[in-house]
């Protein structure tokens, strides 16, 4: 059993009187996909925000390898190989597709004190951007402004930007949101390829995708973990069926 690369223990977050996430423990191991599912409001996005450093936990700890990253700001966590994509597309709309990835690639190199050579001349960063775009299938669209991409292409760009930073961990927040069946198939195939090299946390509503990709499944309801385990065990779990999947999905299984 490989060492987990990102471990959350007893993670919790409250907003005033509202408990959004309560006592969540999970681990991400390399070369695997850990999917998190649950109804709306279950706390899945809050969980990703806690892991990425966008929110600080009220309780619990997060470890990245040997490092305690519980109180770390998001940029520091990102620098240590954790990349995320956003549920609501969060790209640089006015920049070209290529520039979005180039900037992402730039982030992980020394650039604060680079004031003189034009950014385009850094061949390594250009190569990383091109590679990331190629992996997600956007190579032909690099000159287009991100705002002009289709919805599905922009979701792919989200992932490309994460990849351009060469992360060890990918936190993906509903990458298939708003996509039609064709585009979804394409992204699922992409994620299958990525699972070979990364530790992926996948928050998703699309059950077909989840059961196709996940090595491990965690079900969250009302901020808590209802059940966690291999997909078949979750599928068979009566609590889960009752609380979440509903009778139609049960008969479809």
């Amino acid at each position, binding site marked *: 059993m490989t060492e987990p690369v990102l471990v959350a223990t007893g993670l919790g977050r409250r907003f005033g009187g509202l408990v959004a996430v309560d006592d969540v423990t999970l681990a991400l191991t390399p070369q695997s996909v850990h999917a998190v599912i649950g109804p709306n409001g279950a706390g899945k996005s809050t969980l990703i925000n806690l892991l990425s450093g966008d929110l600080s936990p009220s309780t619990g700890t997060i470890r990245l390898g040997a490092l305690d990253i519980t109180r770390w700001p998001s940029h*520091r966590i990102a620098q240590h190989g954790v990349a995320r994509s956003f549920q609501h597309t*969060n790209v640089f*709309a006015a920049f*070209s597709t*290529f520039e979005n990835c180039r900037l992402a690639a730039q*982030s992980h190199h020394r*650039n604060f004190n680079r004031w003189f050579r*034009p950014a385009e001349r850094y061949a390594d960063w250009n190569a990383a951007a091109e590679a990331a775009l190629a992996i997600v299938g956007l190579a032909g669209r690099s000159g287009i402004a991100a705002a002009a991409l289709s919805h599905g292409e922009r979701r792919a760009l989200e992932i490309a930007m994460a990849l351009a930073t060469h992360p060890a961990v990918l936190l993906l927040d509903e990458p298939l949101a708003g996509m039609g069946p064709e585009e979804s198939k394409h992204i699922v195939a992409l994620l299958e390829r990525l699972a070979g090299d990364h530790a992926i946390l996948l928050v998703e509503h699309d059950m077909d995708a989840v059961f196709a990709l996940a090595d491990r499944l965690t079900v969250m309801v009302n901020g808590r973990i209802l059940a966690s385990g291999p997909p078949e065990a979750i599928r068979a779990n009566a609590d889960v069926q009752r609380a979440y999947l509903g009778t139609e999905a049960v008969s479809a299984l």
Partner: protein
Amino acid sequence: MKRSLLPWLILAAILLLLFPAVAEKFYLQLVTKIMILSIFALSLDLLVGYTGLVSLGHAAYFGIAAYTYALVSPAADPANVWLTLPLALAASAAAALLVGALVLRTSGVYFIMVTLAFAQMAYYFFHDTRIAGGSDGIYVNTRPDALVPGVDLANDLHFYYFVLAALAVVFALLAIILRSPFGRALQGIKANEHRMRALGFATLRYKLAAFVLAGTIAGLAGYLAAAKEGYVNPEMMAWHQSGTVLMMLILGGMGTLLGAVLGAFSYVLLQEWFSALTKHWQLLMGVFIVAAVLLLPQGLIGLHQLRMKPRLPRAEDERD
């Protein structure tokens, strides 16, 4: 540098170089003043147009350098440019570093208000105390000495080219910096700071560096202004001054360097025209500003962009 603007840039440079040949004294001094304000506007463009930090207190760094020059200049002899200028720049940079470290923790409207408040603090410091002449200000009796044989800054023509050289250096420096990785990061911060942090950029550091750089360049403008007039007073850092330079940016169009220069020229020429019409020229200027905000969201540069054939914003330009 947007390729489409390059011909205009070259034209502007040629015009400025040749202008003294046809200009009489009043206009020579006027254009010198406008070039100094262009440097000031360029410094704010870096901050507002490229990094997205709307500062309403930028005049503080303009004034601090001006006062430093006046305070360290000898009473009777010309000051040494190569000693006084670095000192003045250092004073502005230090002030910007101190204020920036404090205010960059805020954002949005808070940032606007605190930058204004700190500039007011500087204003009252010089206005209420006798440290530097209070509201009367200080006079400097001679222009500084460039210590270059044949160059006499007391001569308006020489001073004109001195300022033009400074403007050229600032313009080139900013053009280079904005194309660099650091400059790209600043523009990313303006576009979407949250995303930049998610990618791993320590954005506070970049914003502080931009703030200090902008303050330093504003200091250069302040030094030149003080050297030109031989007089400094607290109004140089009043918030009207901060508002005016912001207006120049909106007029010319932010997000391009040429726009800042264009804005400075347009604003001063407008002011001259309005002043000739009535002593209540500020009324006309106020109405003009309101109209400009409502009707010209992209500034005068926007008119140029409308004329170009329509293409997606920024996409092809990124590869320039």
